[in-house]
């Protein structure tokens, strides 16, 4: 009889430790779109800014009055942790981290769903009837118009490398890119780059020599380019830059002509959802909004939605188990070590 008591004690201790060691989900923003006469609640966990989703949620509620929507904004790594470790109760997950979405679905956290709306999504945009892509957003170079008044702006990575080699002093401390250690999206773009071109490591090394500025987010890089603090930002979400119409005079968005990585935001229904019907309706609504011909719901991504076929430089990140590779513990450690060696000299 001693052992069960002991086991209970150990369990209690473990739970206590767990509670202190793993704080609850770090929420960035939380918005509740209350229905006038709520009959059910839909909980959405998302990496996308609430502003972008306001019109979509409002349209959804017009079609489904009775559904209250709780929209929680968090980082992609927080989302994964909340679902896998904390078993948080949400119905829909929307994320720009294609790798983490794939991992969640692969590990059985997603619920499979098929409907006429999911049939609208092209084949490459669906995985296991679980992950549904609804945007296509290019990783671009955003450059300061002021810095390139006298110079032709680079159009390819090789151009950029040559430019940095030719005028190292002009760009020292004036290049920005993601800190791949803290940004999931930056890591995704960097790993895809390393997979695509040899030039990536040369370029990274060169950036490291020129005292590259590291950022957490695309928006900060865009603002710093606009303010003239840096001249070039590499691997910036073009959709964010295009959305900043107010900065159009200061910044120039360049889709590298050698290839442009295209990231997709995706949505999935969680297997643990308590409001499957509401979640399915929301997915239908989202996909119809995104994929109906001529849709302009996602203003920043729409021009790209069906253009990838006609623009050979666009290179989509494919959904699938390949994305699990760079999430591997050893692989990630190796990549980060190599990246740090290149950047921090």
């Amino acid at each position, binding site marked *: 009889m001693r052992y069960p008591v002991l086991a209970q004690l150990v369990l209690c201790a473990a739970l206590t430790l767990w509670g202190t060691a793993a704080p609850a989900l770090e929420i960035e923003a939380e918005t509740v779109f209350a229905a006038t006469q709520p009959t059910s609640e839909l909980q959405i966990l998302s990496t996308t800014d609430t502003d972008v989703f306001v019109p979509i949620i409002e349209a959804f509620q017009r079609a489904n009055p009775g559904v209250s929507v709780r929209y929680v904004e968090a980082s992609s790594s927080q989302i994964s942790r909340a679902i896998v470790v904390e078993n948080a109760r949400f119905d829909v997950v929307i994320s720009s981290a294609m790798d983490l979405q794939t991992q969640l*679905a*692969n*590990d*059985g956290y997603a619920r499979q769903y098929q409907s006429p709306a999911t049939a609208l999504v092209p084949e490459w945009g669906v*995985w*296991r*009837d679980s992950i549904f892509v609804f945007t296509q957003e290019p990783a671009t170079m955003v450059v300061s118009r002021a810095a390139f008044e006298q110079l032709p702006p680079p159009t390819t990575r090789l151009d950029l490398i040559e430019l940095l080699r030719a005028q190292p002093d002009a760009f020292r401390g004036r290049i920005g890119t993601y800190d791949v250690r803290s940004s999931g999206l930056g890591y995704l773009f960097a790993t895809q780059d390393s*997979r695509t071109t040899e030039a990536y490591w040369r370029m990274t090394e060169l950036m490291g020599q020129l005292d590259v500025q590291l950022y957490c987010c695309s928006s900060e890089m865009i603002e710093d380019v606009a303010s003239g603090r840096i001249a070039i930002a590499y691997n910036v979400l073009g959709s964010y830059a295009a959305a900043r119409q107010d900065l159009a005079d200061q910044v120039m968005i360049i889709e590298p002509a050698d290839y442009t990585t295209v990231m997709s935001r995706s949505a999935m229904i969680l297997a643990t959802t308590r409001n499957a019907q509401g979640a399915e309706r929301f997915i239908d609504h989202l996909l119809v909004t995104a994929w109906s011909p001529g849709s302009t719901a996602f203003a920043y991504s729409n021009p790209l939605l069906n253009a990838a076929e006609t623009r050979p430089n666009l290179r989509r990140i*494919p959904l*699938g*188990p*390949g994305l*699990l*590779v*760079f999430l*591997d*513990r*050893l*692989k990630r*450690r*190796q990549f980060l070590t190599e990246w740090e060696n290149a950047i921090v000299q």
Partner: protein
Amino acid sequence: MKIQGSIYRRLMLQLVGGAAVLAAIMFVLFQSFARQLAIESQDTTLLASATSILESVSIQRGEVTADIPYAALAMLGNVSDDRVFYQITQGRAVLTGYEDLPRYAASELPSDPASWTADYRGDQIRLVSVSNSLPFNGVLTPITVTVAQTQDGLAQKLTQISRRAILIGAVFFVVATGLSIWTARSSVRPLNTLAAAVSRRGPEDLRPVSAPVPSEMAPLVASLNAFIARLERSLSRSEEFIVEAAHRVRTPLATVRTQAEITLRRVDREENRVALKKLIRAVDESSRAAGQLLDHAMVAFRTDHMEQTQVDLSAAVAEVIDRQRPVADLRDIAFKRRIAPGCTVFGDSILIHNAVTNILDNAVKYSAPETTVSIEVTQADGVVQVAIRDQGPGFGDADTETLTQRFARGANAGQTVGSGLGLTIAAEVARAHNGRLTLGNNPQEVGACVTLSLPS
């Protein structure tokens, strides 16, 4: 006849049943074969993936590390949308990947590479493990890479294959059923042909069956033929016996009659004359019967071996009338003839003569003196009819069908001499020529009407 089962039905049942069993076996074999193939192809992909991961395992800075190639997992995604799991172990310790993945310890691997199926996270997964040993701190350390995949794609592929297998099985079954019907029909056809040939035969046709039959039916036909031969022998023996008997009776009867007539002329006493007349009459009756038995035997023989030619029935009837005239004149019986000229039939002239003679003889025999017998020959609609009417007692209410049987005599035959074979002979001749003999009473007047109809 006791009917038990049907060869056709049994053949059909066995053939179709056999086809169904074969189709089912084919389906099962096809499916298990397809399943085997699908699993093997999944194993091949998993093995390729595991091997490429194993090759990426190396020792760097005194640490075992792995640089999983992107393609190692991406290639699994190219084949199907299945969930993918992997694990790299060093000895018993998990280096990276899914820690709770079912596994063998490196030393316990049943084979290298090993593949097996297990349950993981609520799904059935297929796992492939490969192992290798790396020198680590001067000791060989076993490294095992396991790559696993759910089997949704496999199940989907199998469902597709199953559907195709069902379709193939169904087509096979339908074709086999069609062939079964054809086989069963053609197997039973010789039997039906034989049955039809035998049942088509006339009552007197006792020739052996000569149509070709399959070897399996040869014993049956041989015994049938032997039976027919026995029957024919026994029939002809009895016919011969009748001819012989009639012949042997007729000759002495003629002698008896002659002697009786001579004696009658000499005898004066009335009672003796009456007795002698009765005797003569009895002798007449017997000799006539014997004659008709002979006639009948002849007819029976000839209907089996008819010599068919074009017979001018008008001429034949006229000739018979001329021959009967002396007998008719004796009793003042007049012949009224209305014979259409040139009515011909295809048949045996002797038999037809005999038939007409027998009918006319009957008519004269049953007519009272000073009456009229009318003879009419007409041709219409491909049928030649010989209608002979008398003014005798007629057939009364007797069943006209039984009158054509051997030795049957009408109820009003009375004192008339007769054997009961006359109409039988006429009816048999009619039947041998695919014709008909109709017996009836004259509708307007008294008397009988006998009509012989023969196809022209």
